[in-house]
């Protein structure tokens, strides 16, 4: 019951935010995007045990697809934006399906390093391809509405995407799909032996992840107003790492973990940017190392260990093997 009240209050606050703190609308839009990043990464990394460093590819594909549609399709702004988002999503899913058939057969560190290469290769290709502006990047069209309307519009677009993403993840994790990908995480060979079509599930999971990331990319390209191939679209060293970090910070393999992690991380990042100007990237690198080494269970994982009864787990009297002698 309290949970429902909290959720409603949070949602009301999120809807009212542009009116309450209008100066922070763009900032909050980025925060919402971070939540999408963390949620979509956790679908693979946390729930399925496939630690991808290359999810940023789908984000970039969505961003570029939308920008190209907006450039070449001479319709009204809302129409091109809507079509662009759809095309971005479809293209991202297609890329995920194609890449997935090859990449998702890799396991463990081969998958991790392979996807890392994928992300960077995509950035390098985009920065050499004249059709999408090469290294000079692309500029999405101006929002036609009144001054100040743009920020509010995109804030609600982001909020909608976050809610849809979250609801989709929740629905997926609750059903057979969630069980299947958790089985893949726990023991892929056994899952396969039990008759699961692991490759289908893995590819489907990557496609879901790509779907939301593609839309996120399409929106973020318009928010940022400039698409740089390596810094915005295929930003492996910023968004690409952050999505991993946020999911871990919040708690891998949980529904709320990525959301909490994204909020905490974004606030921390903004503090770094404000108080450690010039050194913020150093501080972020340091933060990654510290979180990974000292806090790999994440906030929710830690809370679950501390108050297991709150998470619906039965508290068992487990005595460690060493203590028993």
């Amino acid at each position: 019951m309290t949970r429902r009240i909290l959720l409603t209050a949070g949602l009301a606050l999120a809807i009212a935010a542009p009116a309450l703190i209008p100066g922070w609308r763009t900032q909050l839009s980025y925060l919402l995007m971070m939540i999408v990043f963390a949620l979509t990464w956790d679908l693979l990394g946390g729930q399925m045990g496939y630690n991808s460093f290359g999810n940023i590819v789908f984000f970039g594909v969505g961003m570029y697809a939308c920008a190209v549609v907006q450039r070449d399709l001479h319709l009204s702004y809302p129409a091109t934006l809507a079509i662009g988002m759809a095309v971005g999503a479809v293209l991202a899913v297609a890329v995920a399906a194609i890449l997935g058939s090859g990449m998702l057969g890799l396991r463990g560190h081969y998958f991790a390093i392979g996807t890392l290469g994928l992300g960077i290769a995509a950035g390098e290709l985009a920065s050499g391809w004249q059709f999408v502006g090469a290294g000079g990047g692309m500029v999405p069209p101006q929002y036609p509405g009144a001054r100040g309307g743009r920020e509010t519009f995109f804030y609600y677009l982001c909020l909608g995407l976050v809610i849809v993403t979250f609801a989709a993840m929740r629905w997926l994790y609750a059903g057979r799909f969630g069980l299947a990908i958790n089985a893949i995480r726990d023991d892929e060979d056994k899952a396969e032996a039990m008759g699961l079509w692991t490759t289908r599930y893995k590819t489907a999971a990557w496609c879901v992840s790509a779907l939301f990331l593609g839309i996120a990319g399409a929106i973020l390209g318009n928010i940022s107003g400039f698409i740089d191939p390596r810094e915005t679209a295929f930003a492996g060293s910023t968004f690409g790492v952050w999505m991993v970090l946020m999911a871990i910070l919040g708690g891998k393999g949980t529904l709320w973990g990525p959301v909490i992690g994204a909020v905490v991380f974004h606030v921390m990042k903004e503090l770094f940017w404000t108080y450690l100007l010039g050194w913020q990237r150093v501080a972020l690198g340091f933060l990654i190392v510290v979180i990974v080494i000292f806090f790999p269970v994440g906030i929710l994982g830690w809370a679950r260990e501390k108050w297991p009864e709150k998470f619906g787990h039965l508290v068992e009297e487990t005595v460690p093997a060493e203590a028993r002698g």
Partner: protein
Amino acid sequence: MDNLRLLFDAPVLSVQLLLDGILIGAIFALAAYGMTLVWGVMNIINVAQGEMVMLGGYVAFYLYKKGIHPLFGVPVAAVLLFAIGWALYRLVIFRVVDKDLFISILATFGLSILIQQLANEFFGADVRTAESGFGTYTLFSGAVTVTQIKLIAFAVAILTGAVLLWFLRKSRMGQAIRATAQNARAARVMGIDTDRVYAWTFALNAAICGASGALVAMTWIVHPYLGLPYTIRSFMIVIIAGLGNVLAVFATALALGAAENFAGFIFGAEYQAAFIFGLLVVILVSRRVWLARERRYLA
């Protein structure tokens, strides 16, 4: 693709590309051999490998700025990076040695970002090079040029590799390292201090990366963001050559150097990096397909 036709029209060009590729390949081999060491002994994939190459490069560059010949940078970088590697092990790496692979990948990835950004703050983002002041040989009446420094770098790289191999074969610590690679538990039972072995392994890896970095700074360039391609190259070489096969590492590195040079010429220099990372994906996927076929034969 016009460049491809150029290659057929002027075959001498491919001699140039091949030579350049092979000469840089020896430098790749050094970093790759370091990666096999750390992977084989500690079961860690060090994503910060390329950053150590970069730091070694800056050692050579600053020696050159001080007026010392950058070739001295090779031993100096090796010693300095040995110390840095040791410190990194004691501060960070020892905590992730027995954790699952993803933790160690992410931790070293974080280290690589940290080192890269620190280098950016302290050394500046400019592209630097350490001038060695050596001349150039010309072959085929001027059609092919080989800078002497590339030949020297090739020789020094092979020499460094030989010293390392000798150390691993003959010295007490080298034997302990190899024993730990075979079976850490058994090594511990036999009284080997595996923690010390890990520290040595990681520091040795840093040292040879540093040496190769000094060579890179002399033959090519050095800048703070140079690291990741070297890491990826090392990884590629290791997965093709396998762990613990020195000759295969060397041969693969030379082949990779040549392939990269040809690709850079044919597709244009702006796609050279894309080629490296794309090649990684292709190799990983085809390796998997090949392994899957093998599995089907066995079944």
